[in-house]
């Protein structure tokens, strides 16, 4: 197939900010090596919020970790593929070069803000650390800037709070501190792995608002990894749905939610309970279910990873892995049945 067959190619700028291509991650287990990430493609433009959704074990977090060279060692490694960021292939960089990028050009925030913060260091010093390391600021200057950053992420009375230890802060505040740390060196890309999963829903909305503001003000691109479709619908411009270590569908948020094409995306969207469905004291219809369970990594299927749970399965699905094919401009689907261009 010629490159030009992809109609989405023409509208994308020549080089995106981050271009993950055919990434394969291998992890050694007692049962031998497995591939939790098995050919992932992602393209993220500068200044956009890009959502990656999927259930546990789909490979979304490992994809994020491999971008920063943070795979568990020695058992994890990038087997093949490339991660192009600015002018470099991060998959080929050594630890020293990666360290220059981590927390500097690319920053990351994690799900659990308590375990990601150092409990015996004041929050101001933790935010300042990146500025000392990457920008070469003196401790005093770095701390002054850290206070400014804490103010920006909405910590009231930051001058005094900067000396507080993490345990004095609520979960939402800790996540704000994490964001201040991540933003300290004005990264081009912020990877946020389930940033609000541990937070209550009212606090979640505030933290997501903050990320929106930072995107607008600093032009940082955000790779937002989550299992929550609602968060993606509300915040992301583009979305990739992952299943069994691959991207099964990639589209603009509107396309994905209004015209989901992959049977897995379909199934997941129908399985989510939504507000306002109950009427006149009637029990709502049962939620639609996706039968079965996520695939076993130790025994990868030769064909489509979703085949054994799929209602639309045809014979080819068991034999051959479907390609990620364009069905409309900017909309790609990995499916033998629905991944056909709508012409």
């Amino acid at each position: 197939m010629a490159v030009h067959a992809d109609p989405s190619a023409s509208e994308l700028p020549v080089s995106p900010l981050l271009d993950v291509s055919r990434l394969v991650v291998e992890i050694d287990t007692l049962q031998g090596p497995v591939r939790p990430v098995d050919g992932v493609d992602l393209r993220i433009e500068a200044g956009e919020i890009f959502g990656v959704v999927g259930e546990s074990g789909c490979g979304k977090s490992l994809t994020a970790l491999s971008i920063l060279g943070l795979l568990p060692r020695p058992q994890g490694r990038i087997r093949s593929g490339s991660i192009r960021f600015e002018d470099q292939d991060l998959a080929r960089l050594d630890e020293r070069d990666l360290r220059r990028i981590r927390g500097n050009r690319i920053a990351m925030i994690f799900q659990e803000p308590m375990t990601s913060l150092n409990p015996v260091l004041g929050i101001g010093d933790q935010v300042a650390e990146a500025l000392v390391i990457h920008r070469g600021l003196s401790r005093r200057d770095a701390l002054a800037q850290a206070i400014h950053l804490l103010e920006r992420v909405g910590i009231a009375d930051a001058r005094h709070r900067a000396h507080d230890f993490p345990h004095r802060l609520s979960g939402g505040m800790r996540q704000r501190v994490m964001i201040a740390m991540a933003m300290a060196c004005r990264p081009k890309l912020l990877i946020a792995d389930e940033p609000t999963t541990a937070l209550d829903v009212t606090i979640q909305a505030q933290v997501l608002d903050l990320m929106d503001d930072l995107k607008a003000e600093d032009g940082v691109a955000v790779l937002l990894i989550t299992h929550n479709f609602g968060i993606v619908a509300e915040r992301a411009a583009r979305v990739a749905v992952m299943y069994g270590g691959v991207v099964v569908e990639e589209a603009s948020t509107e396309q994905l939610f209004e015209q989901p094409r992959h049977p897995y995306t379909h199934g997941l969207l129908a399985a989510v309970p939504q507000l306002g469905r109950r009427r006149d004291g009637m029990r709502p219809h049962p939620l639609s279910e996706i039968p079965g369970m996520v695939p076993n990594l130790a025994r990868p299927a030769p064909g489509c990873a979703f085949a054994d749970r799929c209602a639309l399965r045809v014979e080819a699905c068991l034999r051959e892995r479907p390609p990620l094919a364009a069905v409309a401009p900017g909309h790609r689907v990995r499916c033998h049945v629905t991944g056909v261009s709508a012409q």
Partner: protein
Amino acid sequence: MTTALPLPLLSVRGLSKSFVHRNWCGRVIRHIPAVADVGFDVARGRTLGLVGESGCGKSTTGRLVLRLIEADAGDVRFDGVDIRAAAPARMRTLRRDMQLIFQDPYSSLNPRLTIGGLIEEGLIVHGVRNRGEREDRVAAVLRRVGIRPEYMGRYPNEFSGGQRQRIGIARALVLRPRLIVADEPVSALDVSVQAQVLNLLAEIQEEFGLTAVFIAHDMAVVEHVSEEIAVMYRGRIVERGRTEEVIADPLHPYTRALLDSVPSLRPRAPRRARPARDDTDGERGGGGCPFRARCDLRMPICRMVPPNTEVRPGRVVACHLHQGQAG
């Protein structure tokens, strides 16, 4: 709400519980109120959704209802029987009728027992002496929740999270209870598995005529399963009523904030008003309305605890804005 109906299966009034915070030599420093003046009824065969954010006291309420912890004050009646006054022997028979389903399918099953043994335990405790009968009942309940009875001899670690939650349901169900308290039963599960377990719970409830208290933080899940909702904040029920009314027309500012914060599946839904303040500095002291510190609409009178006002039959809200609207 239930005046027209016969006696509700579960009736709770004025339920309160404080936990005691002691210093290192055991002296009581302060009492931390976890549940304050909670009241609700659950009609037979119905589900009450108890919803709220972490630390609001919803799980404690569930445990108080089952008398797994002792309340400081209040009244819990199960089918007319005062649970708090029941003698140990009476309590034991009552327990068979009231079962709990836990949140975490990983830590709530003893890893050293086979799943058959885990489910059988309740039958042994409640005096089913015939071994053959026990085995039959375990097999039947496993089949009902969608686990093959042949797996009876396997251990919990051989099952996925969703399957373990099914096993937890089987364990609660085997005693043929009349009331189920389900404490965040699906919040640890992935979306596709969550749907399976929610559907299973709905089928079982219908089939066995179960009454349920469903505790969760996810508004959409609670709406899906419950005919009535009670919204808790800092130990108090701030609003309760029929589910569709509370969702469509929330009266308490906290309920509104909670509903506004739930992301919808419509792409780029217009951004709505957010609660003005983060609940950070834990300004618990001072009494008054528990939501006062975060409320955009607070008034001087909010320094006093708002009374529960029944604005319509079955619709109760604890907010000074709605006081005097009793109708």
